[in-house]
C-alpha cells in the first residue's frame, strides 16, 4: 500500500477505512502519521491499554486555547465558542472530569433512560408514518437524524416548536468539532450557530431554575453532589455536549446498523425471526461498523507503546473500528455475526470516559432499527443510489441511506 492510501481522508479510505486499518494493524500498529502529526494506534490491546492509562490525557483543548485564542488579536467569537467546549467533561482529566461525571451520573443510568422508551417509540412511529406511503426514502435524513435530534431535544426540555432550530445548531457544532472544516466562512457560520445554541440553552437553564420540570436541563440545574453543583455556564456547556455527543453518533449507529442488515440478509433473518435479540445485535453493529472512528488523546508524559516512544505533548488517534476488527481478539473479524457471545468491542470507548450516553444510544437504536424492519415491508437498498460516507476523521457515518420498500 502506498503512502497516499494511508491518508484516512482519501476517498477510498473514507468509503472503506478497514483496509487502511488492517494494513496498519499488521505492519505498523503504532504508526506516526506526518500528515496529521499524530500517532495512529490500531491494535485492540494498545487501544484498550491507552484508554485506561491516565498518561494518555483527555485534556487536549486547553493547549489549543492557550496557543491560539489567548492572544490580543484572537477572534472573540471563536474564543467564546471554545469557552463552551472547554467545560466539556470529554476534554478533562480527573479530578475535574470526576466531578462533572458524578454530577451527571444519575441522568444516564440504564434505568432512568428506560423511562424514555415510550417517547422514543412514539417519535419513531411518527417519522415512519410520514414516509411509509412513499415507498422510498433516505432513512438517515428523514428518519435517524430527526429521530435522534428529537429525542435529545425532548430530553433537554426543548419545546417541539423549536426542534428544527435545534437540528440546525446540531449541524453547526458538528462542523466545528469534526475535523472536516472547509472554508473560513463555514467555520464562522458554525461558530455563530454554537453561540445561538449557547444563548438558547442559557434561557432554558434560567427557566429551569425558576420553574424546574422533569427535563434534563432542570436535572442539571438541580444536580448536587454534597455541596457541589454545576455553574450556569457548565449547565449550558453540558447541554451542548449532550447534543453533540448524542445526536450524530446515534444517527450513525442506526444508519450503519440498518445498512449492515440490508447487506447481510442471513443476519437480518436471524433478527427478524427472533433467533437473535436486538441487544446483542446492537453490540455487533457497534463492533462491525461503529460510529466512533477515532478517539483522541494527548500524551501527558513520554510513554512507550508497541515499541514506539510517544512523547509528551504529542497527539494520539486511538481507532476503535480497527481494535474492533483485531483478529487477536475477534474470530472472523470482518464478518457481521449477530450471534457472537463475547464481544469486547470498544465502540463506546473504555475506562473513565466510557460513553456516558451508552444506555440511551442502545435504547434509541434498539427501538429505531426493529421499527423500520416492522413497518417497511420488503425493505431493500435503492439499487439506483450510491452510498457515500461523511469525510470526517472522528466519525463513521453515511451521508444518506436510500432505500425502497413495498408501499
Amino acid at each position, binding site marked *: 500500500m502506498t503512502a497516499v492510501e494511508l491518508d484516512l481522508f482519501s476517498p477510498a479510505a473514507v468509503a472503506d477505512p478497514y483496509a487502511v486499518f488492517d494494513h496498519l494493524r499488521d505492519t505498523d500498529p503504532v504508526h506516526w502519521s506526518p500528515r496529521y502529526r499524530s500517532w495512529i494506534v490500531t491494535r485492540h490491546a494498545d487501544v484498550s491499554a491507552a484508554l485506561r492509562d491516565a498518561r494518555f490525557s483527555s485534556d487536549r483543548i486547553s493547549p489549543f486555547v492557550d496557543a491560539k485564542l489567548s492572544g490580543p488579536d484572537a477572534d472573540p467569537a471563536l474564543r467564546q465558542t471554545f469557552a463552551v467546549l472547554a467545560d466539556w467533561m470529554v476534554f478533562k482529566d480527573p479530578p475535574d472530569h470526576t466531578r462533572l*461525571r458524578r454530577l451527571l451520573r444519575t441522568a444516564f*443510568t440504564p434505568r432512568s433512560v428506560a423511562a424514555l422508551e415510550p417517547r422514543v417509540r412514539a417519535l419513531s412511529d411518527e417519522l415512519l408514518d410520514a414516509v411509509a406511503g412513499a415507498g422510498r426514502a433516505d432513512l438517515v435524513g428523514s428518519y435517524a437524524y430527526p429521530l435522534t435530534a428529537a429525542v435529545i431535544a425532548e430530553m433537554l426540555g426543548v419545546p417541539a416548536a423549536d426542534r428544527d432550530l435545534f437540528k440546525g445548531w446540531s449541524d453547526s457544532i458538528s462542523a466545528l468539532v469534526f475535523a472536516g472544516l472547509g472554508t473560513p466562512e463555514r467555520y464562522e457560520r458554525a461558530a455563530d450557530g454554537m453561540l445561538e445554541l449557547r444563548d438558547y440553552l442559557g434561557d432554558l437553564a434560567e427557566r429551569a431554575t425558576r420553574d424546574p420540570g422533569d427535563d434534563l436541563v432542570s436535572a442539571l440545574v438541580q444536580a448536587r453532589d454534597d455541596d457541589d453543583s454545576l455553574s450556569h455556564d457548565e449547565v449550558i456547556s453540558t447541554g451542548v455536549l449532550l447534543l453533540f455527543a448524542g445526536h450524530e453518533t446515534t444517527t450513525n449507529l442506526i444508519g450503519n446498523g440498518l445498512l449492515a442488515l440490508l447487506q447481510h440478509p442471513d443476519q437480518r433473518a436471524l433478527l427478524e425471526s427472533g433467533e437473535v435479540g436486538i441487544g446483542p445485535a446492537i453490540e455487533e453493529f457497534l463492533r462491525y461498523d461503529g460510529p466512533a472512528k477515532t478517539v483522541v488523546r494527548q500524551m501527558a508524559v513520554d510513554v512507550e507503546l508497541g515499541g514506539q516512544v510517544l512523547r509528551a505533548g504529542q497527539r494520539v488517534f486511538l481507532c476503535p473500528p480497527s481494535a474492533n476488527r483485531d483478529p487477536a481478539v475477534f474470530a472472523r473479524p470482518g464478518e457481521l455475526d449477530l450471534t457472537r457471545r463475547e464481544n469486547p468491542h470498544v465502540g*463506546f470507548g473504555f475506562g473513565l470516559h466510557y460513553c456516558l450516553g451508552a*444506555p440511551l444510544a442502545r435504547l434509541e437504536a434498539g427501538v429505531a432499527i426493529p421499527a423500520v424492519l416492522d413497518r417497511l415491508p420488503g425493505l431493500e437498498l435503492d439499487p439506483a443510489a450510491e452510498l457515500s460516507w461523511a469525510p470526517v476523521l472522528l466519525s463513521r457515518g453515511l451521508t444518506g441511506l436510500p432505500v425502497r420498500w413495498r408501499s
Partner: protein
Amino acid sequence: MTARVDRSRCVGSGTCTQIAPDLFVLEDGTARVLAPGEPGSRAVRDDDRTAADVEEAVESCPVQAIEGGPA
C-alpha cells in the same frame, strides 16, 4: 449482602467506584469488590447502606457487569 463484578464485561467506567468507593476499586482499569477487612473496605457488609449502594451500582453499571446477592 455480596457483590460480584464480572471483570471480562466491565468497561472501567468508574461508575460503581463513584457510588461506593469503600465497596469497589478500579484495578488495572477494571472494577473489583473490596473484601471486608481490606484497607478501604467497609467493615460491616450487611447494613442497609451497603445494600442500597450495591443495588444502585447494579442498576447504574452501563454494561450490567455487577451482580448483587445475599451473603
